[in-house]
């Protein structure tokens, strides 16, 4: 099983773009010597970690009769299907068919194995279709690699389409309304003019008349993985270090499910870094969570046809641009194998 290059554009748009990296789950979801079933891009996968920490991601499907490998046994360096004992290595090769030794399945790479990377506490995987199995170059978000920046990952699972979760991030104006009663987004004008500013890797969607007050800008970055960067002021109570930033990524789990990854980061060092980490764990994380829950409640309540019956205005330019980009990519990918 693998992602098909003959999938329709509609299916790809609904379940996530192919031929790029996506976050899957936090790294700690798969302990050393453990495995975990996950759904991503509408398909079933098995994350398998050896005791030495090496991670692999396999299609959750035994090449023999299609039983889920995730019901099988972790043999240390392989997984054995529970149904007939067929053993599969982390790269997808069948190493043994215990019921018929010497069977022609042995030695063949029959299970899709996706390239994986672990980044700032999250597992990223490359979801290539049949035509594009080799991973594209992956450039990581600078806030996650800059030693002068400290970040905490917050992961949550929402019953909302992945596109709605990304669109929400390309819609800064909702901060002044949905998050008005929050510790960070209470201030600033409730009217604004926005513009799109192109970059080599995506675009900024930003207010023309206010910066550093609310959720005033966002940058969409397409660097092998899609992510957004944004900045929100902290009140003086958060101490030294200035605003906090968010690197956001979304895992398209299925048509109506998303895994959202938010790294809350701050440019802090020395005692200021320690102070921020202490306050974050003790008091701030809960407040950020309360804000995130406002997004979840709203997005989960959106009707399935929400993006079919709209009357958009100037504040929605960032969303319109995003949809056009994703629709075009889905169209291109659906015909890639034709």
């Amino acid at each position: 099983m693998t992602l098909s290059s003959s999938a329709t554009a509609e299916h790809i748009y609904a379940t996530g773009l192919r031929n790029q990296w996506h976050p899957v789950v936090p790294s700690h979801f798969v302990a050393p010597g453990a495995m975990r079933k996950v759904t991503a891009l509408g398909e079933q996968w098995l994350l398998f970690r050896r005791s030495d920490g090496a991670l692999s991601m396999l299609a959750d499907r035994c090449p023999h009769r299609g039983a889920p490998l995730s019901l099988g046994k972790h043999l240390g360096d392989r997984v054995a299907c529970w149904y007939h004992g067929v053993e599969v290595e982390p790269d997808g090769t069948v190493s043994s068919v215990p019921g018929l030794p010497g069977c022609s399945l042995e030695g063949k790479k029959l299970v899709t194995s996706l390239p994986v990377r672990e980044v700032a506490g999250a597992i990223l995987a490359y979801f290539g279709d049949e035509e594009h199995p080799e991973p594209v170059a992956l450039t990581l978000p600078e806030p996650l690699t800059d030693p002068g920046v400290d970040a905490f990952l917050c992961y949550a699972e929402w019953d909302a389409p992945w596109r709605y979760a990304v669109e929400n991030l390309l819609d800064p104006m909702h901060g002044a309304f949905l998050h008005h009663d929050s510790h960070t987004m209470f201030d600033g004008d409730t009217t604004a003019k926005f513009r799109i500013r192109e970059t080599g890797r995506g675009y900024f969607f930003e207010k023309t008349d206010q910066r550093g007050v609310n959720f005033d800008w966002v940058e969409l970055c397409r660097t092998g993985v899609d992510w957004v960067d944004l900045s929100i002021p902290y009140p003086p109570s958060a101490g030294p270090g200035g605003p906090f930033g968010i690197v956001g990524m979304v895992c398209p789990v299925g048509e109506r499910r998303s895994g959202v990854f938010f790294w809350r980061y701050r440019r802090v060092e020395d005692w200021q870094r320690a102070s921020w980490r202490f306050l974050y764990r003790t008091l701030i994380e809960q407040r950020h969570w309360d804000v995130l829950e406002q997004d979840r409640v709203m997005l989960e309540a959106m009707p399935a046809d929400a993006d079919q019956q709209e009357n958009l205005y100037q504040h929605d330019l960032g969303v319109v641009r995003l949809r056009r980009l994703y629709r075009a990519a889905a169209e291109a990918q659906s015909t890639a194998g034709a």
Partner: protein
Amino acid sequence: MTDTWPYLDVHQSRTHEPTPYEYKLAATLEEVYTREGHELADVVRGLNARQVHAADGAPWTEESFRAEMNRLGA
């Protein structure tokens, strides 16, 4: 680690429920940052003025505050 959907965990950064001492220190720090400023000397003075001392009861010095933050924020 549960694998039931959905995963909605408020606290993902903690290693333990904060102690009453940690809650008190954090809340007072927020007040000090708001009222006294963000310089290390101001923070130490502000905590001591509020009689919110280190776990051993001693008034804060810049060194002891720095060390405690590094412990709590590691």
